[in-house]
């Protein structure tokens, strides 16, 4: 139903997607095949936008509505989109603003003031490192408070990038790739940092407990 697959029956590879996206934007902006070109954009980015709202909004109806509202804005604004930014970044701004607008609506319905908009990275966002705040990870379960304190001190002594990568791994349970994106490093560099961190922590903590990062 409606989604073009490659000859092999797989979804288009990223390179194909990029070229299709470029063509679709050009065609749309030239005022030709508006529906078909917008559909290409919609189908390429729908999963990304939906996932964005799934992470932030509980009601599945609201997730779908906000996703659709985002694309409606894209449709209305695409003619004026200038290639100064990547399309994806432009779309991200629209999704983010759509979310903020929705949050304001929600909060005004509840008669509760919302913090200044631009400091609202996510409605469900928690400000505490996950593991420390919730105590839900396997590591937390396994470690006593004293051990946590010692681990904390040992991590603090690591070099900056290594320390931050380790913290993201342990306390936010990010994957190597996610750490790489967050820290603007290559995945390989993250792996090396974590490998080195593991060695240093083991040595520092003298095998008192297993370090699993």
């Amino acid at each position, binding site marked *: 139903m409606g989604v073009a697959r490659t000859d092999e029956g797989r979804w288009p590879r990223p390179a194909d997607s990029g070229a299709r996206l470029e063509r679709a934007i050009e065609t749309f902006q030239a005022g030709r095949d508006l529906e078909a070109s917008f559909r290409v954009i919609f189908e390429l980015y729908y999963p990304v936008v939906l996932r964005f709202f799934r992470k932030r909004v509980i009601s599945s109806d609201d997730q779908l509505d906000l996703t659709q509202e985002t694309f409606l804005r894209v449709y209305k604004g695409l003619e004026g989109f200038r290639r100064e930014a990547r399309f994806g970044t432009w779309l991200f701004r629209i999704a983010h603003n759509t979310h903020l607008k929705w949050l304001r609506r929600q909060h005004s319905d509840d008669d509760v003031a919302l913090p200044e908009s631009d400091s609202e990275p996510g409605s469900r*966002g928690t400000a505490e490192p996950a593991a420390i705040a919730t105590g839900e990870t396997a590591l937390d379960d396994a470690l006593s408070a004293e051990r946590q304190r010692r681990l904390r001190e040992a991590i603090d002594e690591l070099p900056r990038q290594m320390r931050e990568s380790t913290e993201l791994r342990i306390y936010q349970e990010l994957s190597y790739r996610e750490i790489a994106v967050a820290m603007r490093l290559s995945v390989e560099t993250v792996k090396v940092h974590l490998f080195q961190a593991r060695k240093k922590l083991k040595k520092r903590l003298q095998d008192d407990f297993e370090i699993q990062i």
Partner: protein
Amino acid sequence: MREEIPNPAAGDRHPGVETWISYHGGELADREAERLQRHLVACPACVSLVLDLDAFAAPPDGEDRASVSEFELAAAWKSMQATLADRQAPPRWFERRVGVPMALAASLLVGAAGLSLWGIEHRRAEAYSRPQVNLAIRDLEPNRATRSGGAPSPTVVRRDSYAALVMLPSRTFETYQAEILDARGRRVWSGSGLVAHPELGTLSLGLPPGFLAPGEYLVKLYGGEEKVPLEDDLPIRVIP
């Protein structure tokens, strides 16, 4: 010792989205980038924002696509089309090329394009703005004999009501296809890309009011793209 880290829990402000866009694009000075990295370590919400930004900025790939079934995507597009047609004054592709015959064809297409599509489109309709009673919902184990030992009796659906059919297929496939056959065995609808609920294993199919004329029908399920027939026929009876 550690440098001072912005602590969102203590009321420190999150950097704005434009700051994160600059950070992600590598446009900031090292010192500023390092400050933001310190914030990230203490702030899962901003990490989430940066990861999302990265997902948007990269060309969409197969991983993203796999998170939404073809079926869902087709439904979402139908809904999008309807929204554009409703809200815009009028959408330009209608303005330029579409006359009454095309609009009529489009409405017929909506009718024929698949029951599942109605689920989303009708969310906006008047009928969906309040609770509805007596939805025909059947947790189906097709072809299983009834408690009394007889063949399964048809699920009765009122023609003017919305009916949600919940089916539990007998075999597991990544995707399913479904058909609705009338009493003479003629196919009145078919759809592909059905996916089972990840935990319950159920498939759902929404029948919009008025879609089927009164009579006897059979919902047939097939597994996978190769359309493996399943003995999961669901008889339904539409009554006026």
